[in-house]
């Protein structure tokens, strides 16, 4: 897999807005962003209400995912181009989620909403509706999703990459600083985890750094052992999807999992080891 298979540029996107078989999908943390203006023709996915079970903490089931994509007018053969705010955090999360349910052709718009807006490209407020499809998902591919017991077993054995900011890693902050800090979980990180903030993988305009820069970052600077399996985590699994994308999709590393339980789960578990630096 090469970079061109998984990442599209804003120029390419602008030229392919109406291309048959290409569906643009916006996914944001701030779910009102889409309504204020979106890429023409793009449909919206709400990461909280569309992609999460509304009672238990887990993803929607395969059947619910099928119903969602069918209703949004996304077909199995469509190329889904995902983009969003927060430097594509939630778009990368959706990318990983689409892969989890076995969608073949998914791409990320490099730079997401941020680059699109900084470039002064056009946004539309038109209502988008696409004819419904009959979407069929596959069973979850858990080779890319890590659960808590696996994370505990990974301490001292696998690469654990904590992609939160240094102040969250140390325990000084409990959440990314655009959110209130009063949280129920403990502060700190999983013992032995490397801290490689997701932001180091991105340029200031939100685009991904070059493959060479990414290799230098993870393998050179951070000391990721590429002979070992890797689990990435953050607070709720969205920023670590961004890093999963960099490691697994751009650099082609095998056996990289995203731990979507992340710090809100780990930091709430009874009796697990935590390292704290402050």
């Amino acid at each position, binding site marked *: 897999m090469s970079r061109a298979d998984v990442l599209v540029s804003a120029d390419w996107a602008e030229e392919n807005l109406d291309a048959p078989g290409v569906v643009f999908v916006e996914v944001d943390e701030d779910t009102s962003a889409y309504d204020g203006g979106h890429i023409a023709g793009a449909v919206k996915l709400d990461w909280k209400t569309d992609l999460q079970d509304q009672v238990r903490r887990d993803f929607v089931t395969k059947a619910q995912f099928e119903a969602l994509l069918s209703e949004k007018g996304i077909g199995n053969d469509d190329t889904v181009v995902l983009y969003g705010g927060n430097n594509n955090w939630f778009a990368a999360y959706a990318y990983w989620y689409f892969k989890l349910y076995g969608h073949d052709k998914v791409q990320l718009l490099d730079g997401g909403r941020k680059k699109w807006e900084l470039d002064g490209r056009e946004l539309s407020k038109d209502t988008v509706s696409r004819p419904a499809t009959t979407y069929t998902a596959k069973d979850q591919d858990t080779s890319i999703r890590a659960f808590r017991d696996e994370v505990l077993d990974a301490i001292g054995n696998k690469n654990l990459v904590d992609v939160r900011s240094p*102040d969250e890693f140390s325990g*000084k902050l409990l959440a*990314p600083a*655009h959110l209130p800090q009063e949280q129920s979980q403990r502060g700190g990180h999983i013992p032995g985890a490397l801290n490689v903030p997701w932001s180091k993988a991105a340029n200031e305009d939100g685009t991904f750094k070059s493959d060479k820069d990414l290799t230098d970052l993870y393998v050179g600077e951070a000391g990721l052992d590429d002979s070992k399996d890797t689990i990435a985590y953050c607070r709720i699994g969205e920023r670590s999807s961004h890093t999963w994308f960099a490691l697994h999709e751009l650099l082609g590393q095998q056996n990289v999992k995203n731990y979507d339980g992340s710090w809100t789960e780990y930091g709430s578990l009874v009796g697990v080891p935590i390292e704290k630096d402050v």
Partner: protein
Amino acid sequence: MCGAPPQAPDLPAHVDITKETVIYGVVSHDGAPVPAAYVRLLDETGEFTAEVVTSATGDYRFFAAPGKWTLSVLHRDGAARKDVHALEPGLVEAALVLS
């Protein structure tokens, strides 16, 4: 507006400002507020901590912690950078003027 008290930020109801360190303000350019500007909060070492997009009224807001921080703003009309020092929890206002 001379002498008017600074406008308090719009905070969610459950936020306790005796515990939260809120760094907030307005991004402006030529005297007008700038919506859709990208404001970054950098930690003491200059490392990225968080990013928000300004509201329709040019407002931004972070929940940080006591300490030294840098704000860096990017917009197609310009950029700005400012250091702030939060001594204790509470409100810290920082206006950012694009140039």
